């Protein structure tokens, strides 16, 4: 690099650039938080949804599944599973694990009560109604 562009100039550009773009990021974040209530389905967060999310987390569901495309890629997307399979299928599925079919991927049995499973389903229903800009492309997730 040319000698007229000195190290202290480079340092100043670093500070200036870093601070400027971080502030821009904060501004965009601020705007996002303002418009989020129109998109994030938060009006439908009930105690059941909150408890369902906690069960989702404390059983480490994200360790195999994706949720809105994030997580592990070992098991199906669950952000839209409520619309893909419906509540009854989901409940029966969770209760029926593991399938024990030789050689197939196995989902553990989490020993959830019926009330717990209802809450997990409530959480998945809430997740399926978030405005995700039409993602996933089709029902298969």
């Amino acid at each position, binding site marked *: 690099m040319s000698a007229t562009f000195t190290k202290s100039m480079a340092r100043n550009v670093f500070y200036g650039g870093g601070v400027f773009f971080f502030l821009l*990021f904060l501004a965009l974040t601020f705007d996002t938080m303002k418009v989020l209530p129109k998109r994030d389905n938060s009006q439908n967060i009930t105690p059941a949804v909150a408890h369902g999310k906690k069960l989702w987390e404390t059983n480490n569901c994200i360790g195999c599944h994706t949720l809105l495309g994030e997580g592990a890629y070992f098991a199906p997307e669950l952000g839209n599973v409520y619309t893909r399979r419906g509540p009854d299928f989901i409940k029966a599925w969770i209760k029926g694990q593991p399938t024990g079919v030789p050689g197939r991927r196995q989902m553990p049995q989490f020993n959830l009560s019926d009330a717990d499973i209802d809450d997990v389903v409530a959480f998945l229903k809430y997740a399926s109604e978030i405005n995700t800009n039409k993602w996933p492309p089709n029902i298969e997730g």
Partner: protein
Amino acid sequence: MKYKSQAVAKLYFIAAIGLFLGQILFGLIMGLQYVVGDFLFPAIPFNVARMVHTNLLIVWLLFGFMGASYYLIPEESETELFSPKLAIITFWVFLAAGAITVLGYLLVPYASLAKWTGNDLLNTMGREFLEQPLPTKVGIVLVALSWLFNIVMTVLKGRKTAISLVLSLGMLGLAVFFLFSFYNPVNLVKDKFYWWWVVHLWVEGVWELILGAMLAFVLIKVTGVDREVVEKWLYVIITMTLVTGIIGTGHHYFWIGAPAYWQWWGSVFSALEPIPFLMMTIFAFNMVNKRRREHPNKAAVLWALGTSVMAFLGAGLWGFLHTLAPINYYTHGTQLTAAHGHLAFFGAYALVVLTMISYAMPVLRGRAANPERAQIMEMWSFWLMTISMFFIALFLTGAGVVQVWLQRLSPTPMSFMAVQDQISIFYWAREAAGVVFLIGLLLYIGSFFVKGDSHAFE
């Protein structure tokens, strides 16, 4: 070594390599579970293996960063480390916390672990990469603060260089952004939005500062190029990192409920994210070409050049591959993400830590460079690990492309599990490449035990 206190780095490096081996073994378990679904079930379900695999990665890289900074900061600052004792205590605390956490993952059902460790007090667990129980998360904060304190105090009492400044800033950012791991709102969109403030702002932000500083340090040492030149490059590279990477966070905000304008911000800025990595490649090759000395540690030079190339391929090119919103719409959450994740973490972070270990470890063991035979073995391990990881990324890319086609683009989309059956050949190939990687890693570990005439200091 020039300063006695640099010796603490050795502990950190040994732990890093040990945990790295653990990470790879669990990776092989998971790779096999992709094709033999019930392998080790129910003893080690996939989600547990994955937690161990990714958490060990993070922890060994942190051990590597810490060891590297305890080695390079005294040399940069031209003074002994502020408190070697604190560094040693921190080491044992971190190692114990890490070991107990991994044992907890393996031996206790995750829900019980959450209950016993106070997750009801503050829900933080069960989110990807942030699975650690609350006490472990608090421990990570304390360890990071102790590390930061020790380093900053050392820098303050000695010479202040651009490398130590950038490294300290990277560490500060690492500590600050980790605090967002304690924020877990019920609102899933906000949860995901700020989760990325840890994950993205770490690996595509502040960690790159640490990476740049470590690479610059090793390049100065092995090439003898003027510090002014190297440090100017360093500033320009990390400027581009922050300019592109901060707003680039937006490429994670396309489909999680955030406003659609992030598709523009995220696509444009993250499309520029390869630039700092390309500059890093040009920088590393330039410095080596203009070298003023022939350093006897040829292996370290190879690791350094390898880092710059593989970081560009993994983080830069493989990131760009699926970062534009219209493409990401189809690729989001597929094996393409896994391909990018593997090559980027290996190319940028695993390799830079191995670069630093390769340069520093011989010095810590009282010589300028390892015996020829040891270096040749080390270079073999570089090629085996690098090429096999490149193939892992290629196979996962193949799996991802077919997955996108069958599940999302085809006029008759197949279900997730049906698609997984169709692409199992790619998973078998990936597992085979993983075995070669393990052989490379074992060779690497073996290279530390090769005896012979080592290079003395000049």
